[in-house]
């Protein structure tokens, strides 16, 4: 078949009736500073890993809040924990702790989203 550069978009509907917020709640409880994230993207702009691989710290926030744990797990492993994001964060969020908390707890809450 001729490749026109178009692909089929995968169904990405999120069923909030089946939303699993356990990981999110645990992270917010252990690191309350994460509540004030305004998704400015400063963290992503400065990230050392971004230069080497497709990685987006801000997207981590989105995935976590949507409960997309499978995707989140593969994303979070890319972080090198260098701490640049923490220094540029305008809200002073302890991003490294958020990452470590997710890394620690994600095997517990991993669910397959459809």
């Amino acid at each position, binding site marked *: 078949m001729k490749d026109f550069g178009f692909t089929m978009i995968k169904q990405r509907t999120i069923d909030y009736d089946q939303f699993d917020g356990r990981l999110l709640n645990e992270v917010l409880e252990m690191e309350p500073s994460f509540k004030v994230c305004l998704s400015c993207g400063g963290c992503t702009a400065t990230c050392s890993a971004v230069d080497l691989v497709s990685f987006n710290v801000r997207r981590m926030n989105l995935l976590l809040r949507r409960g997309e744990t499978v995707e989140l797990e593969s994303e979070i492993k890319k972080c090198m924990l260098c*701490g640049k994001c923490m220094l540029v964060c305008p809200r002073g969020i*302890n991003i490294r702790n958020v990452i*470590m908390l997710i890394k620690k707890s994600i095997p517990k809450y991993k669910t397959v989203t459809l």
Partner: protein
Amino acid sequence: METNPFIWPFTIGLLFISCFLIIIVSIWISGLSHIDKSRIVHSIFTRKSLLAIRETFMESLLHRKIFRKNLVLGYMHMSLAFGWFLLIVVGHIQAWNYYRSLSVPAYKAIFFRYFVTEPATTLSEKTLAACVDLLLVFILSGVMLAYFKRLNSRVFGIKKTTKLKAGDRIALTALWLIFPLRFLAESVSAGIHHNGSIVSQPTGQILSSLLPVHSLEMPLWWAYSLALTLFFVSLPVSRYMHIPVEVVLIFLRNYGIRIKKRIDGYSRIQVYSCSRCGICLDSCQMTHAEIKDTQSVYVLKHIRNKNLTDEKLFNCLLCGRCQSDCPVGLSLNDLRITQRIESTKEYNSSYEYLKNGPVEVSPQTEVIYFAGCMTHLTPAIIKSMKEIFAVARVKYWFMDEDKTSCCGRPLMQVGQYEAAKKLIGHNQERILASKANKLVVSCPICFKVFNEDYALPGITVQHHSEYLLELMVNKRLPMNKMPLRVVYHDPCELGRGSGIYHQPRLLLDEYAEVIPVKNEKETAFCCGGSLANIKIQMNERNQIRDEALEEYLSYRPDVLATACPLCKKTFAKSNKLPVHDIAEIVYMAIQEKQNLQKTEYKKEMKMEFWK
């Protein structure tokens, strides 16, 4: 030989603690790696053992490090430890001398005045009896100080002290009772049998005139024996386990055994060697941010009690101030990192995306320059370094100008050892492929890991402060001393972490005026920005930073100099004074001189033109 039933509690207690210590130390030593075991076997009959004996004498008995901290506190510890040690030794010599035999059981020496009722006759007996009396008075002076310390610890230079557990309380009470009871028992016996010496005899006479000494003698000797037993039995569950274990630690340390990246017998020995003196509480800057339960002494206590939480384990800056203050010389930072490795080993990353492309470096390259992630957030440092390289005509390869992975130290600090190894392997390959023989690093965090955990044969790793000093000494940099008052802040990873205190000061001294401050070098403050702490909040970091800044500001410097991009960034945020990296200051001085030369040259040219 005559005996008395009161010797039994003491003898059983002594037997119990001896067996317990032999068993537990054997378990710990068998938990060491093969290399460490062979280290012990090969060092046991060498000079290292003599050095260990000397250290045991200086630290475990004389408590030299505590003397340096505070004289009264040092005297208290010395009188109890050294006094008790001498009392046991002299007591045994006394018993050997009296019974003319070396196989006298321990209780005969400990309860000598009870069993030997006749007064000392020969000169040697009299001298030994007087020695025992004086030693007892020496120890009692320490016990009195210990009572007083509970009322007012500030006199002893201690602001904060640890809370005692039940086991500690029992052992402490026993320790407080042992010597007064012995003194009373000996005095009462002296009052009855007139067998005392210079101190116990007069005390005995006074007591016999006031009290019914005959009915007191037995209860006092029983009480003394029971106090000793209580101390022996409560030792394993109390902080006083440090007394015997510290000796083992000193020997193993002298044999070259160090903390590993995993928990082993040696780390257990370190944990049990903590005396919970609380000296680390006073040096910890976390208290400036009202964080008072995560200090080393508490973490070691929780490790021992097996109830350490991540919240406490990770809430530490790993600045190393407690480590340089610890009178036992525990490797507190490494111990905490090992614990972190254990706690996070289930979830390390593999960084499969790291791919090494060909490294294209010109063969004339003298130096590999690695700025580090943090330095990329302080571009002034990178700019200064580039300019200095140009001035000194150094051919360099800027390794992490773009697309380079982190050095691995931040991962190492939070215990992600396996993950860090991946980054280390990746960077190592690139560095070795470059064929240069010098690596200059601008960030002390990277510097420490390059130095300690990378295998870079034939490559010298230097922090830029060392490198710039070298350039200056080799006259490759112009000199210009600016009229600038500078306070130099020692970064933790460069100072206490890598032992580099003098090079930055020597360098700075050539370009500006360095003012010495109270807390510098080994006791230097942490800026509060440390990456090792993943639990601390930004406002708490700021409090720690402000406390440190307050001291620096009291010296009214024009500039706060540092050699770490993270310290610079942390201090600069306060907006209280200009903060510059050492490279920036050097470049500023060079630039000033160049500008001056240019103006002078222009003037000369003008003069020549008008002539």
